[in-house]
């Protein structure tokens, strides 16, 4: 079998020295290449910590972290990230915002000047893919929150990262916009097949988008359950009303409730 793209084993993270808070404990998971996984859990369970560790922004205090067979010992330029806030640069228009990673990541950084037209066309294609065609010259403050988040997604994808890390990217949006963007994200993923790790506390979002959902316990975070979502793609809003979907969300919800109380639901009982 092919080696998993992301392998995390026994990873722990403690903030603020020896006496600090243990945010993550004995986290072990693996993500296959091109797989879409979602990590859900009660708030403060170390989901975001996991993101920071996988992208190499912070070093783990214990355990090993492998991405693409390489030990993570610093920021990974093969990762694209999007957060709850769009974090677009207000002085750049949408196109320039989307192209920001190209000015940083090699080898694009070297080629950007010479092949600007090619890269711009790539950015325009991405913008069209998320429904922002024709908005490239607008500035962030001229767009709605949902549109800014779409642009932020484009920025995470422009350098064609093999790994896409999404930290509650839709949490600040209203439910209708969010559901629209689920479809957009699913479309992007199906078209390009990056490996995606999505952190969220929206269980419907996790079930709609992911191939596999991991449930984390409350602090210190551990992975306490795992559910494979074998619903056919592309999934639609209709899918979310199917009994299999509803019972999956229900099942996840029970795990979360148990996690918040601090006990595990014993598998299969």
């Amino acid at each position, binding site marked *: 079998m092919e080696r998993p793209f992301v392998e995390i084993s026994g990873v722990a993270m403690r903030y603020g020295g020896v006496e600090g808070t243990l945010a993550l404990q004995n986290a072990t998971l693996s993500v296959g290449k091109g797989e879409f996984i979602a990590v859900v859990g009660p708030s403060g369970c170390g989901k975001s910590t996991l993101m*920071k560790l996988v*992208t*190499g*922004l912070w070093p783990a205090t214990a355990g090993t972290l492998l991405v693409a067979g390489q030990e993570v010992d*610093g*920021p*990974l*330029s093969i*990762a694209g*990230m999007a*957060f709850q*806030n769009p*974090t677009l*640069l*207000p*002085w750049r228009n949408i196109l320039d915002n989307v192209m*920001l*990673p190209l*000015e*940083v*990541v*090699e080898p694009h950084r070297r080629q950007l000047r010479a092949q600007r037209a090619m890269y711009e066309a790539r950015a325009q294609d991405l913008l069209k893919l998320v*429904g922002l065609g024709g*908005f490239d010259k*607008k*500035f962030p*403050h*001229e*767009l*709605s929150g*949902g*549109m800014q988040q779409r642009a932020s997604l484009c*920025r995470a994808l422009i*350098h064609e990262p093999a790994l896409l*890390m999404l930290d509650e990217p839709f949490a600040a949006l209203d439910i209708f*916009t969010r559901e*629209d963007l689920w479809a957009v994200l699913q479309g992007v993923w199906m078209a390009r097949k990056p490996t995606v790790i999505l952190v969220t506390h929206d269980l419907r979002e996790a079930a709609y988008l992911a191939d596999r959902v991991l449930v984390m316990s409350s602090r210190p975070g551990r992975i306490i359950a795992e559910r494979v979502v074998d619903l056919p793609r592309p999934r639609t809003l209709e899918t979310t009303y199917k009994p299999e979907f509803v019972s999956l969300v229900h099942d996840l919800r029970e795990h979360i409730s148990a996690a918040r109380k601090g006990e595990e639901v014993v598998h299969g009982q």
Partner: protein
Amino acid sequence: MASDAVLPAAAAPAAASNDATMSPEAMRRLQAMAVAQRRRRRLQAWLPWLVIVGMFVVWEIGVHAFNVQQFVLPAPSAIAESMVKWWVPLLDNSWQTLMTTLVGFFLAVVFGLLLGVAIGSSTLLYHGLYPLLIGFNSVPKVAVVPILVIWFGIGTVPAIITAFMISFFPIVVNVATGIATVEPELRDVLRALGARPSDIIRKVGLPRAMPYFFASLKIAITVAFVGSIIAETVAANKGIGHLMILASSRFDVPLVFAGLIVTAVMGVAMYVAAVAIENRTTGWAMRGQNDQQVTVPGV
């Protein structure tokens, strides 16, 4: 079910009439609002000039009505007369002051930007240097001028250095604040891409600090005048401060006031220039009422 089907149909004509044909009543109201707004804008543009002219008129009348002595408070007409009479030395000395101020100010901009970037991007430097900076800034600049005179002699150099010292601090503090308050998430986005610290400063820190920087320029240019004039009144043989000291020692109070007014005009002119540069370069940070939010159905 039936009512559901009726609702959109009933709503449609109302929405259409709203867009295409406006009732004459609504049209009139809209036009009246536009006219009122234009009148308001015109008033806003003229108001500063009206206030300034009004102040001079009240001043003139007051001086004559209360029969104030000229060496206490000269009337604006007397000041104007003195300006005409002494226009050559006034121009000569204000040119000197303007040049000293600008040289000091540009030095402050260059070093302020450099130090601001350094302090803003490194917590270590910030903690190390900030107390010393505050210390320097709290020393009254008048007290430093005699020392500068000992070092450089009477003349232009002490004035330039005083202007520099007094306008340096606001620039450093503002630039440092702009850079230090970059959103951590934004920094993470770039760091996760493997950006070097210099990339983050260049792509995010500096542009983000620009509105702070220009805000500080407005303060810095006005206080730079304070600095150079302080030095000129203490130790110089040229400049508007020197001229004012000479005039007051001769009890030529209208000329002292003429010097004040020339200084104010220069200060305002430099301020306006700073604002113009600010508006051109950091328009993105000033979202006025004129901005229109784009709304797209479904998003």
